[in-house]
Every structure is written in C-alpha cells, then in structure tokens.
C-alpha cells in the first residue's frame, strides 16, 4: 500500500506522456516515481517469489536475456523482463509500472533483467539477486567507460549482489578473476567455447583479455562448434544441436550463457530438450546478417555495435561482395577505437554514408578499401544504392551502426524486431 500514491502519479504521467506523443515518454513516469518513492525499484525487484536474475556485460546481454527468458518461460515460469531499451533505472521503473497493479505489485514468479554495466551497479544497490550472469568485458563505449578495468569494476559490483550463483564466461579473463573473488557460499557456473571454436576464429573472441585455457568438458556449458546458424553445445551430460537467431560465434556463446544460467536457476526442473526447443524458437534478429527483399533486391543487413562485432561481421561478408553500403551514424561519437579492426577484406565499398561518413571513409581508406562515393545523407545513399543494378556477385550488403540502422529501417519502411 505504501507506494500506491507514487504508482498513481506515475501512471497519470505515463498517460499524459502518451497523449502528447503516442508511444513515447516511457522513461518519464519512472523518473517521477523514482523521485517521489526512491525505495520502489529496490523493493519491487526484491519481491519476486522465485527471485531476480540479472544479465550484464559489455555485449551480448540483450540476446542472452531474450534467450534466457524464452528458456524459462518454456519451463512454465512466469517471467517479468525489461525491454532492452529500459535497462537503466528510470526505464526499468517505467517497465515495472507498466505491469504493476495499483499497489505497485508486479505479477510474475521471477524477474530476469538485462542490466546496463554502467547504471547496473547503481540500480542494484540494496537489491538482492538470486543469480547474476556476466557475458564479457569489452571496451565498446570508450566515451562512457574509458577502459576495461572500469567495466570490470562495475560488473564486480553487480555480481556482488548475487546470493546464490554467478554465471560467467570462462573465456573472459576479467570475469574469471572476478569469479575467483565471490564469497564461498555463492556457486560459480561457467560457459565458454572449445579450443576448436577459438582456432576457427582467426581474430579471437574479442574479449579485452581472453583466458589462457578453455573449459574442460564437464566444467560448464561448452560451445563445441558453430556452423552458420547452428551450434553444437556440450552441457557436460549431453551434446545438443541448437539453432541460433543469426550466424556467428557470439550468438552461440550467448546461447551457452542463457543455457547455463537457466540450468543454474532451475536446478532439478531444468530440461535440456525444453531449453533447446526454446532456443530454436527465437526469431532471427534484424540487422545481424538478415536478408530482406527491398525494392525488388535481396539485401543483407549487418549491424556493427563494437569493434568485436564489427570485425566478426566484416569477416563474415562473402569475399568479392560487389555492392556494399557502409553507414556510420552519430551513435559513434569517437570512432578511434574501431581503428584496430581490419576491413581490408571488403576491398571495395560502393557508398560510405551516415553522419560519420567522413570518419568511416578515412578508416576504410587506410585499411586499403576502395571507396566509390561518400554521401553523408543516408536517405539519398540508400535510394541510390538500391537503384544500382543487381550485383553480378553476392547480394547488396548494408553495414551499419545502430543509429544508421534505425534511420535505414525508417527510410525503407521496414518494421521488425530489434
């Protein structure tokens, strides 16, 4: 009852925000409730009967969270989860309000939350989690986090909130060091890839520091092999062939993370078959090597979010692909940290676009890539790119950062899941 007035205010604000801008203003009610009832978030998060599970890390947390929720729901667990855009305090409170009854109570057995590594430590103050799953430590947002030590420090704060288990990527040396420091009553579960998978990724896994050794069979959930959108996973008892929402080793690792976390949380109730079916039912992800027919052309979309996904995705573009549009938007404030990557395999890019087109062109040129044209206006670039005759080899391929992806989708009238 104590939060009822705050909840009411939050709902009124949400209603008012919607009136003004349909679909918008979603973080504002959370902001207001956080201000007038600062304990609401903490109390509500701690109040789920089967506890709270938190997923954090530099990259892969959205996908891992989605997969974990799917696995838990397939096991009959009523899960509350946050949309990936609402992983900071206000957004999270708004997401809770969205589902809360008039007393502020949120229905559900268990909460599974994706937590931003920057805000997570703050949001998690005083919140008790059953389990915390950590994906990796990468430096993908230099502007915010400056360096990997800082990211690791923030993840350690989030991990310290787990009272039952932490689930860590054993191939990430930072996370292994973090796991060595949790209190003895907290169980440590691990996931990772086999040496064969490492050997097949010539540029490595992309973590700031990769562990010297791989998990031994039986010590965790291990990705034994990845072939396109299929992964072979060894959970210590059985081998499972599972399908991924997009191709790429990082999706297989996300699946292993979700699988290991579900296994840790469900205990006896966990079924490998149910988990596998749930993973297989996740729809393909937009912008991750997805092919769509646009204006009569088959177009492949490739999203790059950090240097690691950039390198992996660039490497996975078929060599000799004739028509590439490369767009870098304002979400990349300082492109410096992309420079250690190597895009020379692209050889030629038809159009470089986006508000950071000049920075992108400069980087590609020093990688030895030929650039036919730089067109900062993305709409014009898209129109002209799609108007080019169908390529003789490969499909039209659009590589973009998140901001350019949103603009591309809006311009081409493509809906679809994030």
């Amino acid at each position: 009852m104590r939060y009822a007035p705050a909840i009411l205010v939050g709902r009124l604000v949400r209603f008012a925000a919607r009136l003004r801008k349909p679909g918008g203003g979603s973080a504002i009610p959370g902001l207001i409730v956080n201000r007038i009832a600062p304990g609401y978030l903490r109390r509500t998060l701690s109040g789920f009967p089967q506890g709270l599970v938190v997923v954090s890390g530099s990259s892969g947390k959205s996908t891992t969270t989605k997969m974990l929720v799917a696995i838990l729901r397939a096991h009959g667990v009523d899960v509350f989860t946050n949309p990936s855009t609402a992983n900071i305090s206000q957004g999270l409170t708004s997401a809770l309000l969205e589902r809360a009854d008039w007393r502020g109570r949120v229905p559900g057995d268990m909460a599974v939350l994706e937590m931003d590594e920057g805000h997570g430590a703050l949001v998690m103050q005083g919140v008790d989690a059953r389990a915390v799953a950590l994906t990796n430590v990468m430096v993908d947002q230099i502007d915010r986090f400056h360096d990997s030590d800082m990211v690791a420090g923030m993840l350690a704060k989030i991990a310290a909130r787990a009272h039952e288990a932490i689930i860590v990527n054993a191939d990430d040396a930072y996370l292994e060091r973090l796991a060595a420091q949790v209190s003895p009553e907290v169980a440590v579960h691990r996931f990772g890839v086999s040496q064969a998978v490492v050997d097949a990724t010539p540029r490595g896994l992309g973590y700031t520091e990769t562990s010297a050794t791989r998990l031994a069979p039986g010590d965790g959930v291990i990705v034994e092999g990845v072939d396109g959108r299929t992964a072979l996973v060894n959970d210590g008892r059985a081998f499972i062939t599972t399908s991924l929402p997009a191709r790429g080793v990082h999706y297989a690792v996300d699946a292993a993370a979700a699988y290991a976390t579900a296994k840790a949380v469900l205990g006896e109730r966990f079924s490998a078959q149910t988990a596998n079916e749930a993973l297989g039912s996740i729809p393909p992800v937009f912008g991750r090597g997805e092919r769509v027919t646009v204006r009569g052309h088959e177009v492949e979309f490739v999203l790059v979010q950090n240097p690691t996904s950039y390198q992996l995705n660039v490497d996975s573009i078929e060599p000799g692909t004739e028509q590439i549009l490369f767009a870098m938007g304002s979400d990349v404030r300082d492109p410096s940290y992309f420079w250690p990557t190597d895009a020379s395999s692209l050889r030629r890019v038809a159009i470089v676009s986006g508000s950071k087109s000049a920075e992108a062109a400069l980087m590609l040129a020093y990688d030895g890539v030929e650039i036919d044209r730089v067109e900062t206006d993305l709409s014009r670039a898209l129109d002209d790119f799609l108007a080019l005759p169908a390529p003789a080899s490969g499909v039209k391929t659009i590589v973009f950062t998140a901001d350019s992806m949103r603009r591309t989708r809006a311009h081409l009238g493509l809906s679809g899941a994030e």
Partner: protein
Amino acid sequence: MTLTIVALLPAYQNTNGDSENAAVLRRRAEWAGLEARVVAVDTREQLPARVDAVVLGSGSDSSLEQSRGRLLTMHDELRTWGTEGVPILAVGTGWELLSWGIERPDGSSVEGLGILPGRAVPAPARITGDLVVASPRFGTLVGFENHAREYVGAEGSPLGRVRSGVGNSRGSGQEGVVMGSVIGTHLHGPVLAKNPAFADHLLGVAAERASLAYEPGPRAAMVDEYATAAREAQLGAVRAAAPLARG
C-alpha cells in the same frame, strides 16, 4: 631501403587505436612510392636492427607497471632514438611513461623513463572530449582526448595551443610536449590520419634520416579529402558547442 616503423607494446598500449598511427605512416609512405613496414614490438628481442619511426599508444592504468617494465628493457634504445632524431609519437599513458613520472591519487607514483620533460599528476575529473590544437608546426590539429591525469612541467615546449578542449591541464591552454623529434600528446586514435600535415612531417624526418625523399602521393591526396571532411565535421560540432579559443 625499407622504412621500418615500430609500434611499441601494441598488446598493452592500444586502447584507443593509437598504435594504428604506425600503419598510417606505413600507408602514406607506400602511397609516396616508398617501401615501408610496421614491426610490432612487445619485447626487446623483437626490436628490428634499424628503426625509422616509433609509435607508442595509450593503455589502461592496470598495465602501467607492466608496460613500464617492458619499456625499461628498451631504455637505451629509446634514449638513442631520441638523441639521434628518430621521430617518436607517444600518446596518452604511453607519453606519460616516457615522462619523469606518473603520480597516483593515493600519493604513490610510477617513475617514468625520463625521455620527455614534465610529469603526469591526477586530474580532479577525467578529461574526455574533442580536442582542437593550434600548432605552429602542423597547423590546426583535430582529435579526441581521454585522460585521467594532467601533464605539468613541460610548459616550455608544447605541441600547440588549445583552441577547444583541455589539453595538458585546465587553465594551461597548452597541449602536448615536443623535444626534438619526440612528441607526446593527448590526441588519441588515428591522429596522424586525421591530421595529414602531422603525419607528413614525421615521415619527412624519417625519410630524410634514411636519405630518401618523401613527397605525399596522389592516393594520399584523395584520402586526405576524407580527413578534411572529418576534420570539418568535428570542428563544426565543436564550434556549435562553443566558440574556439584564439590559436
């Protein structure tokens, strides 16, 4: 005769892609019709017999001691290159390691190699953002800074005056340090790609020492148009936020 450009400690000192400046020098040399190669040096054993230019990037604070230990094994070489006029570009913590020393907030310090004058002291808050510098040697330098410390004690010979951003320290109005052909700067990432005049100066010095002639090639002229556009875009955003200080 191949120009040999050394990227020092790329495993530790490449947080913002600063080591890639070695590749920028190689490309520009090649575009000028010269032969060039980049040699990544993480231990003294990997040092090539002849060194024409050196790039030392910025790293994370947890690897300061480790990097310092490795640099110490190459202390003699660094001194020799410095006195012989081999161009050395040191960025961020790489520069700080070449200074007299680095002071930590708890009062402890890391002794530097003493190649460059001045020392790094804790800043009240981390300094990040656009950095624009008017340099008497290289014109307007445009880039980004991201550092936890200020740099003091080298006021006699800066790289240039700060027109936007912080540079060496709040209120100093200066950025970087220059000692002969050894240059320390907070400008991180592909600073030589974005500021071709800076790159060409270093290449000119390196080429001259090797009795070669360096004249930027036609490909460089094309690529430098991207650099100009990138500089203009960043300068536009900087100007929109606040007027530039007079150079």
